[in-house]
């Protein structure tokens, strides 16, 4: 059996090259053409950023709509988007554009923000480190996960969905080799609703589910 290789990751953020958006119309124009990495960053990688309390919304577009565009209705519509529910980032982009178009259609003018409150489009390089830790059996998984950094949780549980096997976290993918005896464990992991969890909460949830299945 192949051991589970525990990785850690950090981000190095850079400007995407797109001009910042100062209005909803400009946001639409940029979202229509931005790379998938930009969309991914603003929907998923925000998890790696520090927060002091529970943010109302987890994606940057919803936060901007609420705090800077002062459009709570739009913020709610962006906020409920679950990026994990789409089969591709292109599909996610399509939904974003639909929401913006509907809103622009209702508003008589495209709302703008003051200087300094523009939406900046970023992307990030994910830098991956081998921690040197290895897991050899499913029973070892929970205790090791409980000690993982938030970077490791992000890499194995969020970022994993972009890698082969697509749309599966690394823990579930690794457990497949143990056959039917781990099917309950895999089900337990794959039904975690991670859209509203911080990375620390995700770590706790993963541990709880693994421990419940494998006490």
């Amino acid at each position, binding site marked *: 059996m192949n051991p589970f290789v525990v990785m850690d990751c950090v981000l190095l953020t850079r400007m995407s090259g797109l001009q910042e958006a100062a209005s909803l119309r400009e946001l639409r124009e940029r979202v229509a053409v931005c790379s998938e990495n930009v969309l991914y960053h603003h929907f998923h990688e925000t998890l790696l950023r*520090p927060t002091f*309390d529970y943010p109302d919304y987890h994606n940057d577009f919803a936060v901007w709509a609420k705090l800077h565009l002062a459009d709570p209705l739009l913020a709610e519509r962006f906020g409920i988007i679950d990026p994990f529910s789409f089969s591709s980032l292109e599909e996610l982009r399509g939904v974003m554009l639909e929401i913006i178009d509907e809103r622009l259609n209702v508003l008589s003018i495209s709302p703008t923000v003051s200087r300094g409150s523009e939406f900046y489009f970023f992307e990030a*390089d994910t*830098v991956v480190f081998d921690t040197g830790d290895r897991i050899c059996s499913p029973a070892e998984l929970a205790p090791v996960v409980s000690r993982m950094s938030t970077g490791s949780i992000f890499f194995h549980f969020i970022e994993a969905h972009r890698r082969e096997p697509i749309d599966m976290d690394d823990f579930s993918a690794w457990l497949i080799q143990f056959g039917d005896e781990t099917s309950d464990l895999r089900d337990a992991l794959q039904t975690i609703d991670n859209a509203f969890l911080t990375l620390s909460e995700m770590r706790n949830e993963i541990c709880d589910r693994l421990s419940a299945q494998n006490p």
Partner: protein
Amino acid sequence: MEKSLLMYEACAGCSAIRQLRMLGEKLSGSRVVHVNSTREGGGVAEILAWMVPLMRDLGIDASWEVIRGAGDFFSVTKSIHNGLQGFPISISQKGWETYHGTNETNAERLRSSLEDAEIVVIHDPQPAPLLNLCEGRKGKWVWRAHIDISHPYLPVWKTLRTIVKGYDASIFSMPQFALPLPHPQYLVTPSIDPLSEKNCDLRPDELEAVRARFGLDPSRPLLVQISRFDRFKDPLGVIDAYRLVKKVQPVQLVLAGGGATDDPEGAEVLQEVMEAAKGDQDIHVLLLPPDAHRTVNALQRVADVIIQKSLREGFGLTVTEGLWKGKPVIGGDTGGIRKQVVDYHTGFLVNTPEGAAHRIRFLLHHREKMKVMGEKAREFVRENFLLTRHLRDYLILFHALLSGSREPRIYV
């Protein structure tokens, strides 16, 4: 004493150190040269003073060069600096010639070292022309802008842009500081050294000695702003805020800062501050020597409230230092201060002397809240603004540039 990475493990954690060692292995033996315009005074010199030894500790052949110039050169670069921060300032043809001429002289001295390096990091605009003066360069050149150039005076930026557009990459502290350039623009926030004289723990008797030395009354609240005497730091606004608070609370104010060798305006601003403080025994204006790090450390620790009421700010390392001392900071709502000061969590952002006075009074009336905010502030710095994270970002960037990889995922 030169510090080793191991000494930071207690503050930053072992995984941070392990990441650095792994990156160091990848870059081992690479020649990296940093160039700036002053060895002492200001945040950039402080960063380089720890970063270069730690890069060496990781096996990187790192060095730090400082460009030399006469007073007229630093007058021009100060004007460029002010222009980039939005001050409408005219720079004469002769001024630009002085700027280029001094860089040419420095290029003669530094050329072989810069042309041979795998990575050259040029800090701020002063040495920026060196790129085009090193035609035989082999490595990657990075322009590191530490200042806020988001709304520059355009004639100054237009000229500087022709110089910096040739770099392989640039680094900004905040996205708002960046302007379009035809190369990748990375975002790296600065940091502090928790073991430096300015940030290390101090014994109570040392704090008391500093209090006694400057005649500070331990029974009355103390407000402290540490920064250069620079108009963008708004020392006069701080005095206004202090006076508003003093109407209702018996407070004291310390305005302390050093001069930097590349800032000829400092003396003029200091004079204005002395004038404004005249006749008030509770305002202590202190011009400190560049090596007064322990004094600054002690002043921040004996402060009840730390202020950094800047009108424009690059990142604001004095804010980071204040937060690391477990104090909430009242900061100007500008630049990198916004990234560090979060209302009701690590301090308050303000726009006017009135706003600063209001928040000072709030904190002095809510001592328990102030304590909780201070604890949060220290943890916030530990997670985000210690030098280990800063060093890691640089090493990742070097690694990405040297590998030439365009992949969004880099395995180390």
